[in-house]
């Protein structure tokens, strides 16, 4: 399969959106583009699995390599392994759901969809690139769309949030930039990940470069204490924007932490693993407790995202194969789950015009569909077996437990305790909004979900169930790739 399709389809869609004439056209073009993209992602999944079962054990499949800036030895080098395939699938799911839930955007529809698709384009490009320069290019592409999406279509203190997000992410990018330039000069003037993964830099250099890259990508994935853009950014963004930010953008950071920082600099990773574990354990607990205090649904999900994403960082810090597989699963699972969460919150907000938990109640009566989905996603968030959250967190814990010293055990236990807190805030939020008597008489007039909202929710719920009930396929996808990273870490 030609990977250029994955960038080509969004590009064509974006151009088509730009030249289209009416709002209806814009929507349908975007939806078609997103659907084609989803189909392409599935085609990629099957092609990938086909190759693997046929015994093709090359690390990266479907590789293509074009010269870009030959003076700097920069190549447009793309290829996928299991991690990329999983992330691409995730992006496609969130994209199509995001397009569907934004169906009723009236203000500057064309610009909205254009930016949304540009955002997705950046994510696809990021996940398939095997050249650090190209990877960084795609990472940065998303800055403009994120800023404008929040600033124009957002709510609340949107300008402040948009600025904060853009500047903090730019700060992360600056660190990444310095990190990759350091790598470039110290590893034979190459940006190629496959080349760099063969180079063993001295421990001293790795100790310098690793924090730059890890913190840089960490900003994107809400590494404590650099998570402060998350609550503001997510809560101010429009629904589809939040879905993208939490569902995909944060995963870019996690992917970068693993693929770039940890994989290319194994000695550095070992050196700083303990700090990563401490920070992510703090993030998990702090995020969970901070969520308890929130009354705004979007803030609840934003802080719980900080907590949940902490699990992926924890898994990376544990440096065992199972834990890393779990971290990756958590990324996929959290991406789907949080996108669905924000989608549901958006649906509720569109109807009640409030996001305050205290002002709602008894929504089940008027909107059974939305309430049910809300239930499902809440249960997924607190890790109910049968849904994706359980599988992912469980794998992380199992992997963490494989480290048999006291420090790792304590960190694991601390992280696991957050599940209790999660249960408290999730159940409380659901109970107060969905159950109980109807607090506001005017809510009785509210209607349940439209076709587009139903479709978006169903797509995401199916994906969550597919991971929760039959996790084997995802595990098979991620495990070999995690093994490659592990081999590099153990110096084989």
């Amino acid at each position, binding site marked *: 399969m030609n990977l250029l399709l994955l960038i080509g389809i969004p590009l064509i869609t974006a151009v088509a959106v730009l030249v289209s004439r009416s709002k209806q056209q814009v929507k349908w073009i975007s939806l078609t583009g997103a659907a084609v993209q989803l189909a392409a992602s599935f085609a990629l999944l099957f092609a990938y699995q086909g190759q693997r079962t046929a015994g093709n054990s090359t690390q990266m499949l479907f590789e293509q390599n074009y010269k870009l800036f030959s003076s*700097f030895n*920069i190549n447009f080098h793309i290829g996928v392994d299991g991690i990329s395939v999983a992330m691409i699938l995730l992006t496609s799911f969130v994209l199509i759901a995001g397009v569907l839930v934004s169906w009723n955007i009236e203000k500057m529809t064309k610009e909205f969809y254009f930016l949304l698709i540009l955002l997705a384009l950046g994510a696809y490009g990021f996940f398939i690139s095997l050249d650090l320069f190209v990877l960084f*290019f795609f990472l940065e*592409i998303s800055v403009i769309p994120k800023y404008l999406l929040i600033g124009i279509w957002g709510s609340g203190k949107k300008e402040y949030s948009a*600025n904060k997000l853009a500047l903090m992410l730019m700060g992360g990018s600056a660190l990444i930039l310095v990190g990759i330039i*350091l790598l470039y000069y110290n590893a034979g003037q190459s940006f190629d990940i496959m080349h760099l993964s063969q180079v063993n830099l001295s421990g001293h250099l790795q100790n310098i470069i690793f924090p730059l890259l890890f913190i840089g990508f960490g900003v994107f994935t809400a590494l404590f204490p650099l998570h402060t853009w998350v609550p503001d950014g997510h809560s101010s963004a429009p629904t589809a924007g939040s879905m993208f930010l939490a569902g995909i953008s944060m995963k870019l950071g996690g992917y970068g932490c693993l693929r770039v920082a940890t994989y290319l600099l194994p000695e550095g990773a070992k050196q700083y693993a303990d700090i990563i574990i401490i920070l992510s354990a703090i993030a998990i607990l702090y995020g969970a407790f901070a969520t308890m205090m929130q009354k705004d649904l979007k803030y609840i999900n934003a802080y719980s995202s900080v907590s949940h994403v902490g699990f992926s960082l924890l898994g990376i810090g544990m440096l065992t194969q199972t834990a890393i597989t779990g971290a990756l699963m958590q990324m996929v699972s959290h991406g789907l789950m949080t996108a669905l969460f924000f989608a549901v919150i958006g649906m509720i907000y569109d109807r009640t015009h409030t996001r305050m938990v205290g002002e709602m109640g008894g929504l089940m009566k008027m909107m059974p569909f939305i309430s049910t989905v809300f239930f499902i996603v809440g249960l997924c968030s607190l890790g109910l077996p049968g849904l994706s959250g359980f599988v992912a967190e469980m794998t992380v814990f199992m992997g963490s437990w494989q480290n048999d010293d006291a420090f790792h055990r304590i960190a694991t236990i601390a992280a696991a305790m957050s599940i209790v807190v999660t249960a408290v805030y999730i159940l409380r939020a659901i109970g107060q909004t969905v159950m109980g008597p109807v607090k506001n008489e005017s809510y009785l007039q509210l209607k349940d979900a439209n076709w587009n909202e139903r479709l978006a929710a169903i797509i995401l719920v199916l994906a969550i169930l597919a991971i929760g009930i039959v996790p084997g396929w995802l595990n098979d996808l991620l495990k070999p790739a995690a093994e490659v990273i592990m081999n590099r870490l153990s110096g084989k």
Partner: protein
Amino acid sequence: MNEFLTLMKSELVITFIIFLLLFIKIGKGMKNESLLSLIQVLLLVNFIAGFFFNKEGSLFGDMFHTSPLIVFQKNILSLGIYLISMLCADWLKKTEHLPEFFILMLSAVLGMFLLISSGNLLIFYLSLELATIPVAAMANFDVEKKRSSEGAMKMILSSAFSSGILLFGISLLYGATGTISFGELTAQLDGSPLQILSFVFLFTAFAFKLSIVPFHLWTADVYEGSPIAVTSFLSVISKGAIAFIFMSVLFKVFQPMQDVWYNMIVVLAIATMVIGNLFALRQQNIKRFLAFSSIAQVGFILVGISSNDATGLTSVVYFVLIYVFSNLAAFGVASVIAAHTGKENVDDYKGLYKTNPFLCWIMALALFSLAGIPPTAGFFGKLFLLTAGSARGNYWFIIIAALNMIISLYYYLRVVRAMFMDKNEQPVEKININPTVKLAMIICAAGIVLIGLLSWIYDYIQSLS
């Protein structure tokens, strides 16, 4: 004779246009509109002609030197003046002295061409003066405005001062080495204290012209006072030309003293970036704002210059090429708005998107390119400058430069925010954009988007040097 014609082709074409305009002026004269179209066509011809019959060689006993790279640099400047003649059409049509304006501008450009080609301190000084004095007259072109005169005065005084310093440096250098020819100078340099002293004077003169901190104080006032056409000329064309010659003087002539100038450049680059950025944060007037942002951009150019190798050379030329498109697009939008409404403040741009979406997108693209955000070309330009600058392993320098990109993003976003997000009861009314201006803006936008993605452009510049 034949060699004279081909080697000095760029200069001769410009001279020809100057004389043509003079004759038009002395003769019957033409209506502004048709004259402007004629000038635009001539400048376009000048730009296209720059791509043919390019050879390497020198004339007049090495006083004038040219090579494909130098011709390419001249082409960038030609492209810039062509774009300015289109972007500022609204203002240009209104001026009473259109031919004089272009005579002055082209004289300055002629000076810059000679400057880039100079192979001798004498012609270097002469052409530098030729490149400066007409610009001071241009800065005063809004004669009835007091600020314009004030800006012109400041400019003429500060450039006279820097010329004095330059001459002093040249005479010291001549005393220390016994030659003023670039070719012979290099062999004579041994880093003696007198040579270092004379070099510092030379360097200061460059710093004045490039508005490197702490020699930048004239910049903001001159930029604010001048008409936008002149401001854009100053900030793009002048800066580009001086950066080119500065780089080639440092890389070729003062190569033996590279340890001396490397440290100077690092310190000044950091100061220039930081101070340019910090001052840009709070500017209200869009011209002052772009003035300080251009100071910060010069800081980035210095990062590239600090590399002292072919990569740095290419990156700087590449960056200036991108900078021409990005900065001119920003000035073009400002010029259209100022010409129609007289408004020049960032606050006046609030709610602009409602009435003028096209202008807003052009401005946003330009600002993102200046900030170095992909997919715009500015991203590639800045990244290559940083990569080139870190070839020597001075990573703190690069970290500071990278952190400066965050500060600069903040103030560029301020304008974007005003245009797209802030609400305004009375935004600037809908402006009918002149087709020529629109075309120029589209060219700029295409340049901003494509130059980075078409990666062969960089390799082409590399192959020239």
